[in-house]
């Protein structure tokens, strides 16, 4: 048994010893211990170092508000995390806990040299220096500051654990399973409501776990708790422990982070490390209790100086006496009980020092009965001890005068500055707070959300009061949901109610500017820092916080906010509400990134859309590229081929035989209805009225600002039916835009829009021998130039499959696009591959598609246009139906700047040496000799090596480009300037002779 373990106390299991490592040494605790309680059981108070001064620190709290005892926890490769609270981390055999922010070791840290020069490191000191010479900031000052800052060390390996995310809907969520929360849950559940009760600790009970002396409804508190939890279970209440309500979001959505494995020795298979719940509750009861405030005095941060309430928790919940010779320093009644209980557990309390002149006589009497010395109306001005507190200096205070001091030896100093409600989640709702002068704290007022606060969270104190309030709030919530409920009063014996006073810094006989009275322990913010900030003109608590970093440590001000506010208000001479409270932000306690990311990791980060034909491309060894959410085959390399070689081969095959391309990702929208043609007339720039069923047209879509949004070939299948294709990335946007205009601007039009992108597999076949391939396979259409000319569409069968066959080309060769029901795509692909093999059929990918369309000057919206390009800029004036009274974008096109001269226009570019390939994105100038900044007149949008053109080709947007044909422009690259000639956009077969369909039996 460890030296400080108290037999018979606590809820840990002394028969199940657990050995873990701390600071390289084995430490033994019991099952049920936290790292902090196990260390304290072994008399180890020194657990960490502070942020700025590297001061030695021990656990000051016993819960998630702990600012000091932060450790690195690890479980082998990849499973390490910094800044874990020793007070929350449960121990398991083999746990490795390492101290942080110290070198060479925890007990001797060279960084503590900062502590010697503390006067230099006052609040905001870094804003006032490190400015000369200027270059030293990047090279010297900042790296040194950064190396000194930070706490733990980031993980360096990928996390092997998994995380889950879940939804949960309930009538009532109760946050906090202390007396108020338990009672609220019980009342609401008995009213027939679905109830979820969550608590961040390993077991439910809250303060009851630290107050076994109480008797509730005639039962010892812990027996009552056991019975109550059983009753809740029987009522169907879902009790979730190790579950932190991290944030309160809109309309009663609460984020819950449930920790599932960090306390286990063996990781179970298939269990996530943490689970993030998005819980939606009709009503929320916040029963998060209250947090104890430290007292602010010189040396209040030494290891061994601890909150009295924490000492109670260590004693009663963990069976650990935090010291043999404690001194209690308090302004609140509650800490007296720590003295009594520790004395009863074998400690020798050196003194109870109360700042109040007249603490309750009953408490004083009880102290006297135990033979404990009481000093009332005293202050503390200093402590001693390097790695552990050894003594505290106390003085009587009368009429504001600090009298002669006395040094009292101790091995721990248990303080209490009173309690402050935990209002974090309430604050997340944008709820307003009201200052309560009596309690010197903020209490919850109004909130826009459907939530109530119960128990100590609204300033109530004691088990009886919080139980009653919880039951009442449970009934109130039930009533608001239309359920009758009764809130029975439970008799409580041994309840410890009490009150206290609030302080800024404790009175001292020393110069206040020398006192090291800590307010924010972790960030080393002292009372004098706060006063300095106010002196320097920081008047709002937000400024004070940011200037001093008070409340910005990993406890997010749970320890420091109210003390900081009281001191700042005092320094400003204004009431606390006038100074304001800094806003609490989610999460309530620091929460793993992994829990937020949940399943969205690796391949699941975002869905990967694949076509039905994709597996065949993969089997054929295709190299893929991401295009939006899709992955598309970029090229199909043969052994030994690089991309350029493969692409050249694919282009050659297409232009001499047949190329086959999976075009299934093209967006497809079915526009149907009596008014379909009118709708098309209004949406697209082109005229549609005269387009006959069975014919296709290139369609251009603008925004109402006049700029190009999308394009695609559109087939008219029937008088009232269009098959619209869009760009791959634009499908959802275009449909949304169409729906928007149809539903909200033209609801009188009788039209239906349906996304059919994933209903069709689309295979593009291009090349001079394509008719030879298709004629034997197609039934229902005669594939001749006369019967099925370029830009035709027909419903037919292809290889026996029902198909929509388009005669279109994005390569300049004779082209077809075969649409078959999506699941038939792979079969068709294989059938075509087999039938086409003797004809030289070759699959090609997006890269060859890009080359061939560029050779023909076909634009790609989003590559050759960028959202600032008009149809005229792109040379597409022919696609604009000028006679139409209106279409989307018509008025926008008439705006002054869209018709002004000097716009950038799409042209072709040929490098004058005939061999240099331009780089996409390269900028174009007219005068290559000008100095930087140069006047740029455009940029290269597309550039490819082209076998068909016999040289590299490019498309570019150039200022006034359409009027510059034949002119030379210059493309300055880092190493040289390239000259190029402006040309038209078509580099191959400008007469479109190759689009023609060879007659049956004719030569290819």
């Amino acid at each position, binding site marked *: 048994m460890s030296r400080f373990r108290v037999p018979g106390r606590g809820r840990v299991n002394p028969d199940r010893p657990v050995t873990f490592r701390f600071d390289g040494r084995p430490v033994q605790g019991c099952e049920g211990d936290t790292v902090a309680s196990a260390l304290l059981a072994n008399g180890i108070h020194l657990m960490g170092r502070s942020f700025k001064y590297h001061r030695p620190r021990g656990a000051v709290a016993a819960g998630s508000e702990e600012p000091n005892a932060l450790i690195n926890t690890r479980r082998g490769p990849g499973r390490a995390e910094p800044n874990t609270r020793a007070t929350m981390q449960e121990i398991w055999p083999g746990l490795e806990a390492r101290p942080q922010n110290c070198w060479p070791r925890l007990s001797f840290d060279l960084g503590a040299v900062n502590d010697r020069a503390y006067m230099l490191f006052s609040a905001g000191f870094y804003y006032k220096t490190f400015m000369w010479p200027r270059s030293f900031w990047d090279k010297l000052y900042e790296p040194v500051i950064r190396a000194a800052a930070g706490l733990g060390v980031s993980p360096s390996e990928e996390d092997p654990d998994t995380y889950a995310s879940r939804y949960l809907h309930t009538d009532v969520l109760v946050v906090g399973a202390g007396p108020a929360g338990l009672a609220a849950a019980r009342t609401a559940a008995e009213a027939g409501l679905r109830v979820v009760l969550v608590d961040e600790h390993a077991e439910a009970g809250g303060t009851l776990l630290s107050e076994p002396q109480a008797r509730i409804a005639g039962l010892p508190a812990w027996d009552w708790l056991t019975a109550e939890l059983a009753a809740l279970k029987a009522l169907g209440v879902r009790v979730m422990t190790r579950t932190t309500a991290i944030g309160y979001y809109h309309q009663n959505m609460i984020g819950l982070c449930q920790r599932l494995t960090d306390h286990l020795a063996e990781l179970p298979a298939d269990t996530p490390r943490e689970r993030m719940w998005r819980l939606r509750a009709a009503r929320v009861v916040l029963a998060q209790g209250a947090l104890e405030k430290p007292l602010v005095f010189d040396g209040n941060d030494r290891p061994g100086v601890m909150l009295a309430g924490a000492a109670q928790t260590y004693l009663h919940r963990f069976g650990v006496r935090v010291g043999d010779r404690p001194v209690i320093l308090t302004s609140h009644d509650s800490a007296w009980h720590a003295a009594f209980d520790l004395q009863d557990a074998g400690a020798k309390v050196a003194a109870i020092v109360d700042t109040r002149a007249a603490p309750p006589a009953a408490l004083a009497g009880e102290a006297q009965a135990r033979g404990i010395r009481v000093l009332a109306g005293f202050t503390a001005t200093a402590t001693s001890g390097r790695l552990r507190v050894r003594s505290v200096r106390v003085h009587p205070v009368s009429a504001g005068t600090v009298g002669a001091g006395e040094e009292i030896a101790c091995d721990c100093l248990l303080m209490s500055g009173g309690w402050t409600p935990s209002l974090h989640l309430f604050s997340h709702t*944008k709820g307003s707070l009201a200052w309560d002068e009596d309690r010197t704290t903020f209490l919850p007022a109004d909130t826009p959300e459907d939530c109530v606060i119960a128990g100590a969270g609204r300033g109530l104190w004691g088990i009886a009061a919080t139980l009653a309030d919880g039951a009442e709030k449970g009934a109130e919530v039930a009533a608001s949901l239309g359920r009758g409920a009764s809130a029975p009063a439970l008799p409580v014996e041994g309840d410890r109610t009490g009150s206290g006073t609030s302080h800024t810094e404790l009175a001292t006989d020393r110069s206040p500017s020398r006192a090291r009275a800590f307010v924010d322990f972790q960030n080393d913010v002292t009372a004098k820092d706060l006063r300095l900030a106010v002196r320097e003109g920081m008047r709002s608590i937000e400024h004070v916080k940011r200037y001093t970093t008070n409340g910005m440590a990993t406890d997010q001000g749970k320890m420091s906010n109210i003390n900081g506010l009281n001191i700042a208000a005092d320094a400003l001479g204004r009431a606390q509400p006038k100074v304001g409270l800094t806003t609490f932000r989610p999460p309530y306690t620091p929460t793993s990134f992994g829990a937020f990311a949940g399943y969205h990791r690796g391949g699941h980060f975002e869905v990967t859309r694949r076509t039905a034909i994709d597996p065949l491309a993969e089997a054929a060894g295709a190299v893929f590229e991401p295009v939006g959410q899709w992955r598309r085959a970029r090229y199909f390399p043969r052994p030994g081929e690089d991309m350029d070689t493969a692409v050249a081969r694919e282009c050659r095959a297409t232009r001499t035989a047949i190329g086959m391309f999976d075009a299934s990702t093209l967006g497809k929208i079915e526009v149907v209805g009596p008014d379909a043609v009118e709708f098309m007339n209004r949406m697209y720039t082109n005229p549609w009225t005269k387009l006959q069923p069975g014919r296709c047209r290139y369609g251009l879509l603008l925004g109402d600002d006049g700029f190009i949004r999308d394009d695609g070939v559109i087939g008219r299948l029937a008088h009232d039916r269009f098959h619209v294709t869009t760009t791959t990335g634009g499908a959802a946007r275009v449909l*949304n835009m169409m729906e928007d205009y149809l539903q*909200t601007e033209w609801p009188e039009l009788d039209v239906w829009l349906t996304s059919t992108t994933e209903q069709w597999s689309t295979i593009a076949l291009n090349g001079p021998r394509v008719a030879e391939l298709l004629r034997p396979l197609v039934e229902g259409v005669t594939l001749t130039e006369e019967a099925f000319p370029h830009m035709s569409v027909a419903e037919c069968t292809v290889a026996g499959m029902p198909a929509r066959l388009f005669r279109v080309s994005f390569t300049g060769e004779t082209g077809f696009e075969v649409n078959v029901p999506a699941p038939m795509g792979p079969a068709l692909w294989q059938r075509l591959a087999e039938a086409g093999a003797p004809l030289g059929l070759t699959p090609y990918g997006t890269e060859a598609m890009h080359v061939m369309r560029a050779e023909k000057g076909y634009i790609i919206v989003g590559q050759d246009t960028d959202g600032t390009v008009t149809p005229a800029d792109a040379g597409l004036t022919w696609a604009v139906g000028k006679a139409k009274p*209106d279409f989307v974008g018509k*008025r926008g096109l*008439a*705006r002054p700047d869209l018709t002004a001269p000097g716009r950038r226009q799409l042209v072709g570019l040929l490098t004058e040496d005939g061999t240099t390939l331009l780089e996409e994105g390269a900028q174009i100038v007219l005068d290559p000799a000008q100095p930087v900044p140069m006047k740029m007149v455009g940029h290269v949008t597309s550039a490819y090596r082209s076998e068909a053109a016999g040289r590299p080709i490019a498309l570019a947007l150039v200022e006034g480009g359409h009027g510059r044909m034949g002119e030379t422009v210059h493309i300055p690259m880092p190493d040289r300037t390239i000259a190029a000639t402006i040309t038209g956009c078509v580099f191959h077969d400008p007469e479109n002779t190759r689009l023609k369909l060879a007659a049956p039996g004719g030569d290819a």
Partner: protein
Amino acid sequence: MLLIHCPYCDETLPELEFAHAGEAHVARPENPSAQSDAEWEEFLFIRRNVKGPHYERWRHTHGCGRFFNAVRDTVSDRFLATYPAGAPRPSLASLTGESE
């Protein structure tokens, strides 16, 4: 995450099913070509950007697909009403019980 009542589906559903679609009751002019540049700018770009009850459009993208209108307080993010596209705009007084 907001909860939004789709007036067509008559269900209150999480925001993830919906897409915000900007200010409501900004009608595209009957005859755009008759609009001045300033009027067209106003239609395209000028928005009230209200702090408080805001008439706005949403689309139940992952549900019925319909566009509808809503009044939402942009300070509290609370919805005061949702109603079908084309329905007249409800007066604020009728929604808040206060005079405008």
